[in-house]
């Protein structure tokens, strides 16, 4: 019995050590830093400066809510794009399934930064794409760059595979006989889709939404290259606070607020939408 328990600990040890050294200790340092007062020139001192949190939130709540707003829309749009995509590949891809999935992933072999810069060129004011969008009234003011739309589109594009892959994985495991059974029981294709396929793919939807939303909230590359001065997200603010203002405590406080809010939001989300889906479910509950 003791030996079994030791084996358990031994197996957990590398992962735990990794987390302690590379996550918990830096987090602790950052938390301490967030409660420092002072300035670079005169030096920082730890003295429980909770005011950093209050000030960070008051000054930057606009960017804060904007980040959640952009990330939320991007997640929904990514789901709307990714679901039919994954569904199409799985149910109609046939023997090209793997190749099609590889094609979806192919652009992501290039780095994130380069892809975003490519979008900056594609969406520049003189580009044919923007002329087209202008012509159909989708680019008021004659430009797309420097607008909320460009940032949201960039985030959606950049995080799409994080949505496609979990959906693909969960759709692929669906036993097609359930769908045949549904048809046999006089379900229309539409109701078979909504009452069998979608519920069975919820783990993919939940996981995909989390994997897209969480990094999207903290993203700053898209807002930096595709947005304007009025589209800055919380990541840009943290970067600016750290690099140009050198207000390390406030940058740390802001990061902490972000982390806590995301953790709470995700916890609620999993509790409400996801726990059953993530833990697996039995068909009897599909109603």
């Amino acid at each position, binding site marked *: 019995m003791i030996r079994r328990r030791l084996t358990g600990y031994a197996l957990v040890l590398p992962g735990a050590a990794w987390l302690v050294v590379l996550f918990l200790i830096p987090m602790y340092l950052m938390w301490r830093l967030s409660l420092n007062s002072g300035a670079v020139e005169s*030096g920082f001192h730890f003295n429980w400066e909770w005011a950093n949190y209050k000030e960070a939130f008051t*000054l930057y709540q606009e960017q804060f809510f904007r980040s959640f707003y952009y990330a939320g829309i991007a997640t929904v749009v990514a789901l709307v794009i990714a679901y039919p995509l994954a569904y199409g590949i799985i149910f109609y891809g046939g023997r090209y399934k793997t190749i099609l999935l590889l094609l979806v992933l192919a652009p992501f072999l290039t780095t994130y930064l380069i892809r975003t810069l490519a979008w900056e060129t594609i969406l*520049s004011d003189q580009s044919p794409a923007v002329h087209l969008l202008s012509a159909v009234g989708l680019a008021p003011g004659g430009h797309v760059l420097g607008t909320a739309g460009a940032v949201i589109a960039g985030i959606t594009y950049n995080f799409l595979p994080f949505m496609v892959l979990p959906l693909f994985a969960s759709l692929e495991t669906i036993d097609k006989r359930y769908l045949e059974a549904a048809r046999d029981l006089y379900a229309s294709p539409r109701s078979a889709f909504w009452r069998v396929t979608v519920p069975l793919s919820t783990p993919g939807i939940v996981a995909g939404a989390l994997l897209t939303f969480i990094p999207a909230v903290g993203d700053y590359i898209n807002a930096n290259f595709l947005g304007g*001065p009025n589209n800055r997200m919380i990541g840009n603010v943290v970067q600016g606070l750290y690099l140009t203002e*050198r207000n390390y405590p406030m940058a740390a406080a802001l990061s902490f607020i972000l982390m806590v809010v995301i953790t709470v939001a995700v916890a609620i989300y999993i509790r409400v939408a996801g726990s059953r889906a993530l833990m*697996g479910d039995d068909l009897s509950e599909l109603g």
Partner: protein
Amino acid sequence: MRVNRPSVGKRRQGAPRKIGTAVAALLVLCVAVSACGSSGISGGETAESSTAKATGKASGSLTISNWPYYISPKTIPGFEKATGIKTTYLEDYNSNEEFYGKLQPLLANGESGGRSLFAGPSPYIVERMIRQGYAQKLEKNAIKTVVENASPDITNPAYDPGNKYSYPWMSGLMGIAVRTDLAPDIKSACDLFNPKYKGKVELFTEMRQTLGVIMKCMGVDFSKPITEEDWMAAVNKVKQAKEDGQLRKFAGNDWTNELLRGDVVASTGAAGDTYQLEQENPNVKWVMPEQGCIIFTNAMTIPVGAPNATAAYAFMNYVYEPKHAAQIVEYTHYLSPVAGVQQVIAKTDPELAENELVFPSKKSIAKCSPEPQLSGEMEQKVTAAWNAVING
């Protein structure tokens, strides 16, 4: 589809206690390592500054940081050939605050990130580096060429009396860069705020230069001390423009693409940079603002912890040779701090030697002023307001 559900109840038993133990263990570890408390980024007290020692003949390798568009492509190969010093020239100076922000934690620990020479800092950064003990004193014996050839106009500046720590790299005229095909009527910095160009205008993040040019057009008298009201009025003008969607972006050295593409039709811009852009797109032109420009300077300093200061001295001497300085001027069209450059250029390129933007006469820059400086509480207040605009 049945997946084993983890037995939640069992798993949770005793968990809080274990977490408590883990946290306690972590704290003990922290105390033991004692790294957690004192973060390595405390800036700290003004340190006694050291002197960069020159030892023997220059050799080995050298790393320099500078702004992009600020050197001739011939300079580094020429220097390497003349001295045998392997040189890495980094164009990683995107903005004063950003560069300083990246290097400051290293400098605080007495390291320079492998760099032997900074050629990019603006006067206020040089001043700050001196105050913090991050700049090393120069050994005048090791830079005889520099001392000899430095133009008298630029020696002994207020930010570094007696040039104990620094010598200018180059200076420039800050005004407006305009796409003459897209915005032909921009003549002053205040025209950047014309609603006709909504969403097509760019401003630099460099506070002293950008606000300087704007204060000029707002009619601030630079011959008197500039008041906080003047600074704040300019900040508010920019803030308003940002809120109105007038500005495409606040840029560091990443300002050029938008202008070349035409996404931006006008921007604050330095004459030298703009000249180089004009070579790529002849529609990009530098405009001297009607109310005058701002003259900025960037200075060479040897940071603390600089490896191979001897090689840095050799480089300073090299670029202060009039013929080498002329090479840089020919390519960049910036203002050289080296005496005798105009004469060298007059022989090879008489037209350039007459160019008022490269060798400005007193008359042509009569309305221009040096980059305005700030200090103390006023600096903190204006900087905070400016940061809130560009970072908010």
